[in-house]
């Protein structure tokens, strides 16, 4: 038994091999472990969204879902991708320098710190709870600070979150210092384009991590010691990391392609000069573009456009790299396909796909449409699943036999892995993009159940499973190779030759044969190549300048700065001025002293200026009203800052939905609202109804329309009427009697997704039963019917207590104007099983308002 364990450890961690091989094996073992757990997180997310799409029910609690989403990102980005890249860079550094590595403690400390950080970022574990699993308290997103900061956000993350970040930062600094020091000391004056890329990419890591080092520790000091936090500047500092972290993951894959593509085709790189310039430009532009994630905040237009152009600066080295890699294989009559070659071509195509959509995202006028939607998620999944991961696999298929001294167990499994990764990865990106094009917000546990949305969600799950199956086959092949791989001898071979030999064991040929491409004949002159390089680069710059110029006028009118608001919308005589405050988790509106929550009332074809901010205690929010036939309204709201949204209301009266577009806690998608465009005289005519019905269907967050005189409103398990937030818009005839019946079951209130009963004990169902027995099945909330007259004045028509297990009915005669029905006031909700919630453990509370809707009156 002991011998078996010893052999297992030696096989996994390659303890009998060289130091750099042991480091790489350590990062691979831990990286794969985090990928498996991170993959399970993705499965949890897919199960929740698919279950909701197919049946309107939630299978997990909101905090489990959001923790799963966060941890999926953390475990994949840092535990898997960054860690393996760190191992690969240590391996390459030793091989490139040929030096005996010194100060090895720096690398081992770094690897211990990065793995410890992933544990800490999960938050505390509560094993004694009967229903809350290890995900309480959930984790945060520093990109959305002050989310999770005690005193600035009612959703508070555990202090282990900040400790996790500090460990991650220190790990990166230690590793980066070692790689750069080792390269510099041993390669003085002998750098080539690969070592320059390795050095500058490592420097990019080092500089990039300085931003979260400042912002996350500022948040930590704020949450623990009450140090003041400027929400916008804290977020801006973090976002310096936001772009560079993508390039920290992207550039190692680029380094891999720069190294293995020439190796695979037995040719030198097309242009070493172009490669070096690419490395320099990548480094220069990657760390200085934080605002391109924050276009729709309060920065003036000139800042946004300047950042757009600087982001285009990053496109130039990418275009140069695409040319250089593609041209390197031009004219090569290579005949034998291998798995690394297939993954390299896949990674190249994925880089182009994700790269060009990245240019779209960087363009202010395009970002104004797709900002915060699933499209953005599709873009970065394209970068990760179609470029970074295939690039790493291309290298791993060559490195593993070299490190282990054994061939791959099965060529067939390797090729299946390739095809499933290709098909699954493409499907994931395409269906995420599709959801974004439908206007669906990212990080959405609940979403409008429209036809295309539900089918996209289901297909996204199918392709995720295909992708996951591919990775299972890869792991099986790795394990098979450890025990059943054919012994291979790489003694005395240079690294390039060793890698080619390793690649040849995954040949596509049925016989397993491999034919190496012939070397270059030297028939093409350097000057003609140089002309091609310069022309290509000049064309790229010219096209980017053209695009910037053509899209600038619309881009200059985007964002929430007061300076972007046209003068005609600042005239109080001709514009309806409304102040909007985003609370956690509800909206309040103030129009000339008249305050409403959840909705605001306007007239058709009227100029409106919304002056928005976030309340203290609500980290941040986003006013998202995608009126596809009028205007996209999508601005971020910050504490202590004012963000302005200007628009002319639709000419067609009716109800237009909006949503909080930014994650501010696990209940953020319950934060819907309605803009009520009041018809003249308060009565919708037949043609208006038809026109509204035809146009509003394109707007995803506008509630569904139901026509009739008698309506049954059933409370869902997640605290909405008829699975819609806000509830469906009801159409009743002027002068008729409308009947609304509200039906509430015990199970719907007892659901952990519902917010009507606070979670203070792990036996909360019993607690609810006891409460209802003592209070005649009544909850302390009033269902109301409120009339809004055509001038916007509100009057309560009738109200009754909300009763569990019995239908509560209202009847009223429809008068001109509109009505608001349901639980119109926000309800306080908090989660603290056994009283554990605190700023050290984490906490979640807020005011919820999702059980209400609007009645419109027709002729």
């Amino acid at each position, binding site marked *: 038994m002991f011998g078996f364990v010893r052999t297992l450890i030696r096989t996994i961690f390659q303890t009998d091999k060289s130091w750099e091989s042991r480091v790489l094996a350590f990062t691979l073992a831990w990286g794969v472990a985090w990928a498996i757990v991170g993959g399970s997180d993705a499965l949890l997310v897919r199960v929740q969204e698919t279950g909701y799409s197919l049946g309107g029910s939630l299978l997990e609690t909101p905090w489990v879902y959001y923790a799963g989403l966060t941890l999926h990102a953390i475990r994949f980005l840092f535990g898997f991708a960054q860690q393996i890249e760190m191992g690969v860079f240590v391996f390459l550094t030793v091989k490139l320098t040929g030096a005996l590595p010194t100060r090895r403690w720096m690398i081992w400390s770094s690897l211990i710190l990065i793995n410890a950080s992933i544990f800490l970022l999960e938050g505390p574990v509560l094993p004694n709870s009967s229903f809350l699993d290890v995900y309480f308290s959930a984790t945060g997103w520093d990109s959305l600070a002050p989310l999770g900061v005690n005193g600035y956000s009612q959703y508070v993350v555990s202090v282990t979150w900040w400790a996790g970040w500090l460990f991650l930062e220190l790990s990166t600094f230690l590793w980066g210092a070692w790689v750069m020091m080792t390269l510099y000391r041993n390669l003085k004056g002998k750098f080539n384009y690969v070592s320059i890329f390795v050095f500058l990419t490592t420097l990019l890591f080092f500089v990039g991590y300085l931003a979260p080092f400042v912002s996350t520790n500022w948040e930590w000091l704020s949450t623990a010691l009450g140090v003041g936090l400027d929400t916008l500047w804290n977020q801006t500092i973090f976002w310096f990391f936001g772009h560079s972290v993508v390039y920290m993951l992207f550039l190692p894959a680029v380094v891999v392609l720069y190294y293995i593509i020439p190796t695979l085709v037995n040719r030198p790189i097309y242009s070493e000069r172009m490669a070096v310039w690419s490395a320099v430009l990548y480094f220069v532009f990657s760390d200085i573009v934080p605002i391109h994630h924050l276009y729709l905040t309060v920065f003036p237009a000139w800042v946004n456009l300047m950042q757009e152009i600087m982001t285009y600066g990053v496109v130039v080295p990418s275009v140069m790299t695409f040319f250089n890699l*593609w041209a390197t294989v031009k004219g*090569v009559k290579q005949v034998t396909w291998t798995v690394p070659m*297939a993954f390299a071509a*896949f990674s190249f195509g994925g880089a182009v796909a994700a790269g060009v959509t990245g240019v779209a995202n960087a363009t202010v*006028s395009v970002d104004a449409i797709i900002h915060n939607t699933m499209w953005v998620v599709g873009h970065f999944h394209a970068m990760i699943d179609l470029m970074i991961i295939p690039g790493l696999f291309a290298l791993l298929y060559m490195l593993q036999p070299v490190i282990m001294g054994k061939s791959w167990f099965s060529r067939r499994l390797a090729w299946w892995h390739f095809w499933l990764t290709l098909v699954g990865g493409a499907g994931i990106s395409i269906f995420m993009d599709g959801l974004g*094009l439908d206007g669906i917000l990212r990080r959405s546990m609940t979403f409008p159940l429209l036809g295309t949305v539900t089918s996209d969600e289901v297909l996204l799950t199918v392709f995720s499973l295909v992708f996951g199956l591919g990775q299972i086959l890869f792991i099986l092949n790795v394990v098979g190779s450890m025990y059943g791989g054919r012994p291979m001898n790489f003694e005395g071979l240079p690294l390039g030759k060793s890698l080619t030999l390793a690649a040849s064991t995954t040949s596509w040929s049925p016989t397993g044969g491999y034919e190496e491409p012939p070397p270059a004949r030297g028939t093409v002159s350097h000057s003609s190549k140089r002309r091609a390089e310069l022309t290509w680069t000049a064309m790229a710059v010219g096209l980017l300048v053209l695009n910037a110029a053509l899209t600038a006028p619309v881009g200059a009118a985007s964002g929430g700065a007061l300076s972007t608001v046209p003068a005609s919308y600042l005239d109080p005589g001709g514009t309806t001025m409304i102040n909007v405050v985003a609370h956690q988790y509800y909206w309040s509106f103030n129009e000339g002293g008249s305050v409403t929550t959840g909705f605001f009332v306007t007239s058709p074809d009227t100029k409106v200026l919304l002056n928005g901010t976030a309340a203290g205690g609500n980290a941040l929010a986003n006013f998202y009203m995608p009126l596809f036939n009028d205007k996209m309204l999508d601005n971020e709201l910050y504490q202590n800052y004012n963000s302005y949204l200007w628009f002319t209301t639709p000419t067609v009266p009716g109800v237009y939905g909006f949503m909080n577009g930014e994650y501010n806690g696990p209940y953020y998608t319950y934060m819907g609202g309605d803009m009520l465009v009041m018809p003249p005289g308060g009565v919708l005519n037949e043609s208006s109804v038809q026109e509204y019905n035809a146009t509003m269907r394109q707007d995803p967050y506008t509630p569904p329309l139901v026509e009739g005189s008698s309506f049954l409103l059933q409370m869902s398990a997640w605290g909405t009427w008829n699975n819609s937030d806000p509830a469906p818009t009801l159409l009743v005839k002027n002068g008729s009697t409308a009947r609304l019946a509200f039906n509430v079951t015990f199970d719907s209130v007892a659901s952990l997704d519902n917010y009507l009963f606070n979670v203070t004990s792990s036996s909360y169902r019993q607690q609810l039963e006891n409460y209802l027995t003592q209070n005649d099945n009544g909850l302390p909330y009033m269902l109301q019917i409120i009339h809004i007259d055509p001038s916007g004045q509100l009057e309560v028509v009738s109200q009754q207590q909300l009763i569990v297990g019995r239908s509560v009915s209202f009847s009223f005669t429809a008068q001109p104007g509109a009505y608001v029905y349901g639980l119109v006031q926000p309800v306080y909700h908090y989660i603290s099983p056994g009283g554990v919630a605190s700023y050290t453990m984490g906490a979640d509370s807020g005011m919820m308002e999702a059980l209400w809707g609007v009645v419109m009156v027709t002729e």
Partner: protein
Amino acid sequence: MKFTLFSAMALGVLLAAMLLVWEEVGITLRGSSSFSNALWFTVFSLLAILVFVVFMARAPDND
């Protein structure tokens, strides 16, 4: 004609272009709110892909 690494990379560019066209044209035609925003970017994308593909076909071999 053999399916070389160069051909595979060209296929990758072609598929990326198709993805981009689907996305950008989809955004542009979605409604009046997005038409003017995305129109020029779509034109730019198509032009860029066309120019680069033609240019790569004419670039000298790595030989």
